[in-house]
């Protein structure tokens, strides 16, 4: 089922990516609840359309910087579920050999420069990658994902100023889920909102419904086009609520039951499946097949992770380039 209609192909790809993110993270949530995953885990369930739509507008040789809530970004950029899952377990076959964990997953071959435990840190890093492409005369693009809360870090200001000043080929994608940790956006962000901040740097901005993967793709695709034609950076703000807590285990006392029910009605996966059927881009059998296929992918990923084990301490010292102790 492909080729006949490029828009349909895109929509189906976006659906598959979203579903992959959804099932992967639902499984992570279950494993975490079972006490099988260490550390902090931040899930993006409800925000899948932003990662899927934005990365679909990129080439494989383009790069992204991600956040503490980065599973979706890595998956959307083509990351391997098994190596991601193994990393969450802290095992040696994980992307970071178990040394980084959820907040540091990176896949340099696929242009994932890394999730990040430091809010806002990916913003100047993406500008730097874009600067490298500019100096090297490549038409590659860098894209930075960050949250609404990150827009209040100095790194946002310094990064966007540099990007605009040097017309760097970088796209800034703010995932506005209405909260920074346990605090609502209005409490931490002055002014009309993140999008309005682009004008301060003479940078164009676009706002988009972050639960509509096709809309996100189209907006980001235009921004990427501007980058490749040397017109410089764009700030994209995509609104999409997160369903889960800030981190797994967060009781979400700061959100009303009504709000929690409401956000689940804006399910980006369900929205796109309805669209696929309505536009006749896919039929129920295909949806069925995809559900089964992705279930299998995730199951295989868990099996892969379970088949791995932690690195041994000596190997860790080698990775760090340290043999001796102080």
């Amino acid at each position, binding site marked *: 089922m492909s080729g006949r209609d490029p828009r349909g192909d895109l929509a189906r790809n976006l659906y598959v990516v979203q579903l992959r993110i959804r099932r992967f993270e639902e499984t992570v949530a279950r494993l975490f609840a079972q006490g099988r995953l260490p550390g902090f885990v931040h899930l993006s369930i409800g925000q899948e359309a932003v990662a899927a739509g934005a990365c679909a507008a990129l080439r494989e040789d383009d790069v992204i910087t991600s956040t503490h809530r980065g599973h979706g970004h890595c998956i959307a950029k083509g990351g391997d579920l098994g190596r991601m899952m193994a990393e969450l377990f802290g095992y040696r076959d994980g992307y970071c050999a178990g040394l980084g964990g959820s907040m540091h997953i990176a896949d340099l071959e696929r242009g994932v420069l890394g999730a990040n435990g430091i809010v806002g840190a990916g913003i100047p890093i993406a500008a730097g990658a874009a600067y490298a492409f500019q100096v090297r005369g490549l038409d590659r693009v860098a894209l930075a994902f960050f949250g609404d809360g990150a827009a209040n870090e100095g790194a946002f200001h310094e990064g966007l100023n540099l990007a605009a000043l040097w017309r760097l080929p970088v796209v800034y994608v703010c995932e506005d889920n209405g909260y920074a940790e346990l605090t609502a956006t209005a409490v931490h962000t002055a002014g009309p909102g993140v999008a309005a901040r682009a004008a301060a740097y003479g940078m164009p901005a676009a706002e988009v419904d972050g639960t509509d993967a096709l809309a996100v793709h189209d907006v980001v695709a235009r921004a990427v086009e501007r980058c490749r034609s040397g017109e410089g950076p764009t700030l994209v703000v995509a609104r999409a609520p997160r369903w889960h807590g800030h981190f797994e285990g967060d009781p979400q006392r700061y959100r009303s039951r009504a709000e929690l029910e409401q956000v689940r009605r804006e399910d980006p996966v369900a929205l796109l499946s309805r669209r696929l059927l309505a536009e006749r881009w896919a039929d129920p059998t295909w949806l069925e097949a995809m559900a089964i296929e992705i279930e299998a992918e995730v199951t295989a990923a868990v099996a892969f992770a379970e088949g791995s084990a932690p690195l041994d301490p000596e190997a860790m010292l080698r990775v760090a380039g340290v043999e001796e*102790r102080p």
Partner: protein
Amino acid sequence: MTELRYWQAINQALAEEMEHDPLVVLVGEDVGAPGGAFGATRGLRERFGPERVRDTPISELGIVGLGVGAALAGLRPVIEVMFNDFLTLALDQLANQAAKLRFMTGGRAQVPLVVRTLVGAGKGTGPQHGQSLEAWLGHVPGLSVAMPATPADAYGLLRVAIRHDDPVVVFESLRQWNVRGEVTPGELPGLGRAAVRRRGGDVTLVSLGGALSRAMRACELAAAAGVDVELIDLRWLWPLDWACVESSLRKTGRLVVVHDAVGFLGPGAELAARAAERGVLTAPVVRVVPPRTPVPFSPTLEAAYFIGAERIAAACQEAVRNG
């Protein structure tokens, strides 16, 4: 005497100081309505109002700078920087402004600022949430550095810090977060006083912050092996209670140091250096501290990284063997 968890002791100290002095304010990410990412400020906004308990944007440099200005203008701000790994963003305001203002103004300015921050070491928080950067702050003239390891100190040291007229950074321990212990309301331990947690004659074991529980277990293991350890919980990296450490060393002649910070240029280096300057050692110093690598995420690797009680005990026995 009431029994409290470590985080509850922090909460109580904050409540009492805000009650005691209307100029004490709390400012930080999620400290208000949510009551703190880990609960330490629970109930304080309701009790003292949104003016004095402020949720902030994610702007570490900005909020520490805000604290400096507020302190210069008469408040006694307590700023929370969620994890000490994030101090990396606020060090100009902490090290170049708060720490130096008294000196730079010839002694005229006063910056009664407290920065509370968390050490995630030992809780699977990984490379960017598991560091213990107290050595950085200790290296900065003008800053005092507290490292409470028990509920009593989480309460007492924080109150001392809030009443101090110069900036203090308090490194709280996520590892100790839920530990229970006796707290004596009203108690105000001396600024820069270490605590001898166990008397012993063979080896002086100095422990910093969250390493205490393992150090205590190590004392038992060593005792079982016939080595009598004197355990000093440093409590403050600055002011440094060197008198306490040296008097113990004059008795034992042997020094073992344990902490969660990287060993290279870590707190143990200064303690070992002083011992070497004073010529009070009969045996080589042993630092049982993490290697010069970031904190690994993998729980098994992390456990090895933050040196367990067995290896600490072994170090004490080694010290005895070597002189």
